[in-house]
């Protein structure tokens, strides 16, 4: 991984990368980042793996169901036990 360019540019862009992978930045800032990535393999890898990191976590949703006993005690505490039975049937 060799880079001959100014390393300070990488540091400056780092602060924007999270919003960049969310697609939340203005086009002009995206252009700057994309141009830099074209010249800097290091930042390109950081961006790609950062994006993948977020994607992988999103792929682990939805939430696993609450354990049966925890759910039963919750409905009992809230005095909703009657409704819990009704809800299991749907």
């Amino acid at each position: 991984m060799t880079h001959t360019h100014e390393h300070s540019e990488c540091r400056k862009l780092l602060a924007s990368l999270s919003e960049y992978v969310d697609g939340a930045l203005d086009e002009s800032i995206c252009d700057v980042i994309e141009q830099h990535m074209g010249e800097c393999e290091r930042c390109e890898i950081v961006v790609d793996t950062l994006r993948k990191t977020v994607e992988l976590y999103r792929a682990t949703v939805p939430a696993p169901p609450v354990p049966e006993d925890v759910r039963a005690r919750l409905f009992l505490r809230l005095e909703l036990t009657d409704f819990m039975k009704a809800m299991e049937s749907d």
Partner: protein
Amino acid sequence: MLESTLNVPPGALIAEASPAPPSLSKLQSGDRVEFAQLVDTYSGPIYRLALKIVGHPQDAEDVLQETFIKAFRNLSTFEGRSSVATWLYRIASNEAFMALRRRKPEAVSVDEEIETPDGEQEPVQIVDWCCLPEEELLSSESREHLDKAIDHLAPVLRVVFLLRDIEGLSVRETAEALRISEAAVKTRLLRARLQLRERLSHYYAERLKVEQA
């Protein structure tokens, strides 16, 4: 412990009740079917959030119960400026942090330093592991690793990451739930994601070596 403000025959209305979004006016009028639906819809996400913040099943269960008890008690004063979901996440985050302070005060106290604006930790792991096949990236071992990596984040970073990237709240909703600025959400999210990227890169780089051997 809770007063039954309205006695609806159970099961009678449940089939007609729509799953989402919760109706605030029904909730505020004391509609217990609607409240039961709310509990049913959000108990999974809230339990998961609580468990990842407090790291202890009994504490997480207490947080889950307290969240809905407080929600029930405070429904009448809820003004609806945020969504009901965001409001529930706010109560749950508060409860979880109180539980965490009781169990591990030191874990929360170091959080003060988080906001220092002296820049981000420079990325260390520079390996492109994106090319790994999906079944490797999301194998049960990998999933376990993904899950454990979250636990290494400082609690204030962790809660932002959980609300935004796991529960899918927007930056604005996350800010509302935690009563912090959107700028603070963005800073903490960036920091959390970069730290997770480091851990994942370390792990997947090893998988890559195995794959390429």
